[in-house]
Each structure stands twice: as structure tokens, then as C-alpha cells.
């Protein structure tokens, strides 16, 4: 038997494949399309203190091998999440990771406390890197602010903390190190790359929000490079790699680069069962290659 389970902080995942926040709704939407319990973990859409209506439409447009999104973090707010979404998810035997977003440290701390208290949440992913809201990037581009935020969160909760890094920086390692130093149990990377597109006849931006975040296969080489860089610099902190993963082969590249787990984001839009297909594909690859533990792959790339 092949072992596919990995550990992220205190959390043991049955396989290394999670969903990408914002690409899998709150889980319930997909509960008939696939078996949620077959996921390594279910990461839900960013949740904020108050409900948010998000940006005007168009919110997503297509680019070559990718999409630009500027959803603007539409969500029902923390009360709605705890009352309406969490009870449904608790039915499933799957780790639930809630992605948090806020304007300031106090927002994040409040959310972390509420979710710790609510019970049934296994880890928090800290979105310090959403490029689509005012001040959304403040934390992610600044190691010092990141350190402060994660320090405060570390005091507020015992839940596994995963800090989600932005790729829109010169030095992703320094931000990752700040989060690790402040007590983050793991890092996830990458969030989307800031981009835009223009309708040449209308002479207008194709997204109502002007810019959006680029995701999908187009960004995979960049994401993989960043995962590798961070793993080289910080080999002891588990990484959740993401950015353009569509197939098991893509995911295995991330594992070899140093990710302990991966997330499947945009790919779910074109293949509803992408996350589970990737998990199954990894298992098949291990069997094929005669590898009995997925952990052997982690960081195993050589020059």
C-alpha cells in the first residue's frame, strides 16, 4: 500500500490535494459533483468580518492558458459562514480550512477567534495577498507587516495557520520567512499575479475592476519557481503549492519542488473533479514508480 498522507502543521491530510480558495465556493456547491471526503482538505472562499458584495461585472475574463479574476472577495461574512456554511461542511470527514481576509490586524484576529470558537474548523489560511481590494496587498508585500499580523494571529488561535503569499513581490522568501518566524505553521503560494486586458474597440479595460489576478496554467512556471525558492530557503516549513495545477503531473512537479501539499484552483472550473483526479493521479504515479510514500517526492528535485 502506498502512503499518500502528509502533514501540514498539526493537520494530517489523507492526500496532499486541497482545493484553492475562491475556486470551490464553500464546498456545498460541489458536494454532488464529487465526494468531499476524498479531498486532502477543503479550502473555502475568503471570508471577511462583514458581508461583501465584491466588484462589479465583468469579474473574470479569459487570457491565454489562464484567466484574470477580480471577484473582489464577495462573501456572506463570518456570521453567515458559521451559521449557514460550516454546519454543512462538518458533515464530511474532511479537514476544513477557512481562508480569512481583512483590512487590518484586528479583523483577522476577530475572524480567527470566531472560527476557533465555532469548532469544526481545522486550519486557517491567511489571505494577505488578494490584489483586488484596497490595501489588499499591504501585508503581502511587507515582511514586517506580515510578521505583525501572524504574531497576533498566533496568539489568537491554536488552529494550524497557513499564510498565503503573493507572487507580486521582488523577494517572496523574505515574506515567507517573516510569516514562519511569527509562528505560521505553513505557507501557501502562490496567489494570483496582477494583470489586465483591454478591449481594443471599446478602449476599455475588460474587467470592471481594471486589474485582476492571473491564474491557471499560464502562471505555473512562476509558481513552481517560487515554491522551489521558498523551500530552498526555508526547508522546515511545509508549503502548499498552487498556481496552474490541472493534472497529477503538474501537482507532482510542485511536490518535487518542495511543496508538502498542493491546491487545485482554476482547474476545477474546467473539470469539476480536478482535485480528486489529481489526488488519484498522484497515487497512480507512486504505484507506477514503485514509491511507497508520497513524502519521498517532497523537495526531491535535483539539478
Amino acid at each position: 500500500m502506498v502512503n499518500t498522507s502528509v502533514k501540514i502543521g498539526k493537520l494530517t491530510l489523507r492526500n496532499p490535494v486541497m482545493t484553492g480558495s475562491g475556486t470551490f465556493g464553500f464546498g456545498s456547491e460541489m458536494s454532488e459533483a464529487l465526494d468531499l471526503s476524498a479531498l486532502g482538505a477543503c479550502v473555502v472562499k475568503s471570508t471577511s468580518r462583514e458581508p461583501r458584495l465584491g466588484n462589479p461585472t465583468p469579474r473574470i475574463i479569459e487570457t491565454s492558458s489562464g484567466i484574470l479574476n477580480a471577484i473582489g472577495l464577495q462573501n456572506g461574512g463570518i456570521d453567515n459562514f458559521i451559521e449557514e456554511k460550516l454546519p454543512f461542511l462538518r458533515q464530511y470527514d474532511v479537514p476544513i480550512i477557512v481562508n480569512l481576509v481583512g483590512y487590518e490586524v484586528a479583523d483577522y484576529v476577530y475572524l480567527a477567534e470566531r472560527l476557533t470558537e465555532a469548532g469544526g474548523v481545522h486550519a486557517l489560511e491567511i489571505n494577505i495577498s488578494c490584489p483586488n481590494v484596497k490595501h489588499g496587498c499591504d501585508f503581502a508585500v511587507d515582511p514586517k507587516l506580515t510578521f505583525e499580523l501572524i504574531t497576533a494571529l498566533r496568539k489568537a488561535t491554536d488552529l494550524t495557520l497557513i499564510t498565503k503569499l503573493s507572487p507580486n513581490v521582488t523577494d517572496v522568501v523574505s515574506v515567507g520567512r517573516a510569516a514562519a518566524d511569527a509562528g505560521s505553521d505553513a505557507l501557501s503560494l502562490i496567489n494570483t499575479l496582477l494583470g489586465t486586458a483591454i478591449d481594443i474597440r471599446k478602449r476599455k479595460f475588460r474587467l470592471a475592476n481594471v486589474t485582476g489576478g492571473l491564474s491557471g496554467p499560464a502562471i505555473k512556471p512562476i509558481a513552481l519557481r517560487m515554491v522551489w525558492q521558498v523551500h530552498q530557503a526555508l526547508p522546515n516549513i511545509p508549503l502548499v503549492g498552487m498556481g496552474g495545477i490541472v493534472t497529477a503531473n503538474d501537482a507532482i512537479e510542485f511536490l518535487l519542488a518542495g511543496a508538502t501539499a498542493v491546491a487545485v484552483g482554476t482547474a476545477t472550473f474546467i473539470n469539476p473533479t480536478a482535485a480528486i483526479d489529481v489526488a488519484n493521479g498522484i497515487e497512480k504515479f507512486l504505484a507506477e514508480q514503485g514509491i511507497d510514500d508520497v513524502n519521498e517526492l517532497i523537495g526531491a528535485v535535483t539539478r
Partner: protein
Amino acid sequence: MPVSAQRYLVPVISNDEIIADHRVLTCHAPEVAALARPGHFVNVSVGDGYDPFLRKPFSIYTVDRERGEISMLFSIVGATTRGMAKKRAGDEIDLVGPLGGKIFQPDSREGATHVMVGGGYGVPPLVFLSKELLTADPGANIEFIIGARHKDLLLCEAELAEAGVTARMTTEDGSHGMRGRVTDALRLVLEEQSGNPVTVYCCGPTPMMHAVSDLCLELGAPCQLSVEVGMPCGMGVCMACVVDLADGRRVRCCTDGPVFGAGEVIW
């Protein structure tokens, strides 16, 4: 509402041009055929690579549950529809579906008249709806209005005739049927039907649906509109397809719709 979004790689049965740049592609997809109801759509991908990356939604046009076949009527506008146009019998096509949360709800009142108003590739789901109504009740009262700019762009007249439905055609240039817009014909129909229970079902270009919606509100006729917006996922998870409702909610077109009532949507 969760969708039973399943992916199917299925063989194409036929792919025929019906009018210029419009084709009907039929494929063998028994699981989809079994579940499909009028207003449902499927998300189609034609390529092997990741460019274009997203699937594109197409309404289900005909369903043959016995043979396990469904068809889509599409107009060739971009990469996916160009790729669909190239498919030949025996080729594979990649579908996710059936998708759609709130679809057409047939008016079940005794003696109700069903008024279909369609334009462009909004006509096919209404043909599907009409056939389903006639299957359930061969005596169902159906009024069907199809609009186009020019007679060469009118769709499905023959198919409806075959099903026993005589459609009223309107063309903006008067080249076939009544000169004018679908709303001109709709006003006549609704006046004819005044006093009877009636429901309008509408699918077509947004300006047309907006006008139909306004007219139905004016005349007090219940109206179901299948709203079209870009749908990156079609499964309720991306939050890109949102529409603003009169009650202040911002909901997903794909799973909270795509069918909404007149007066429900802010245009």
C-alpha cells in the same frame, strides 16, 4: 444549490449547418439526456491544450432520451464554437452538465397559455420547452414568437412546425413574418390572451429580454427569463456570473438562475 456537474467525453453523432454560421451538433450523452430539462445548459470544451482555457455554456436544444442523445444549436463566434463547427461524426466532445439551478417552470394552471419569445440562440431552449409541454399534454396552448433582424437569421421555424407549433416570426426589416420586434408580436398575443392564464418564457439577446420583461411587467403577465452572462465555471463556485436583484441580493446566474422572473433582475 449543489449541481451534479459531471464531465463526459462523448461521441458526436452529427453536426449540420442550419443557417449561415449556425449549426446543430448532436452527441450521444445518455446521462445528460436523462437529466436534461428545458433551460439546462452544458459546458463545452473542444481543445486539447489550455488555450482557450475555459469551457463555454450552450443550452440544450433537443433531447432524445431513448437514443441517449442531446443536441446544441450554436452560432460560430469564437474559439470554442469554431472548434465545435469542425467536429465530425465520431469525433469526441467534452461536456460538463447538465447545469443550471433555477430553470423554466412550466405554468401548471388549467388552460394556461405558454408564450415563448426567443431570439438567436435563445430560441433552442424554448423549442425544447415547447416539446416537453406538448409531450406532457398534447393539447397544450403554445404561442411562439421568434425575432431576428433579417429572415436569414430566423431559427427553428421548420422544427417547430414539425412539432405542430406555428411560430410567429418577426423581422426588423420585414423580410419575413411581421415587420418589427418580438415585443410588437408579444403585445398582440398578450392582448388576444387577455383574461386567460398565461406565462411568458423568454430567451435571447439581453436588450430583447429587457424589453420583453418591461412589457410583461406593464401588462401584468408572469414572465420567466433565461439570463445570459459570462459563466466561467457554471457550477456556482467562481462568483463571476453575478446579477443584481431588485431585492438587493447579488446572486449567481448559473446556479441561482439562469431563469429569473421579470421584475426580479435589475437590467
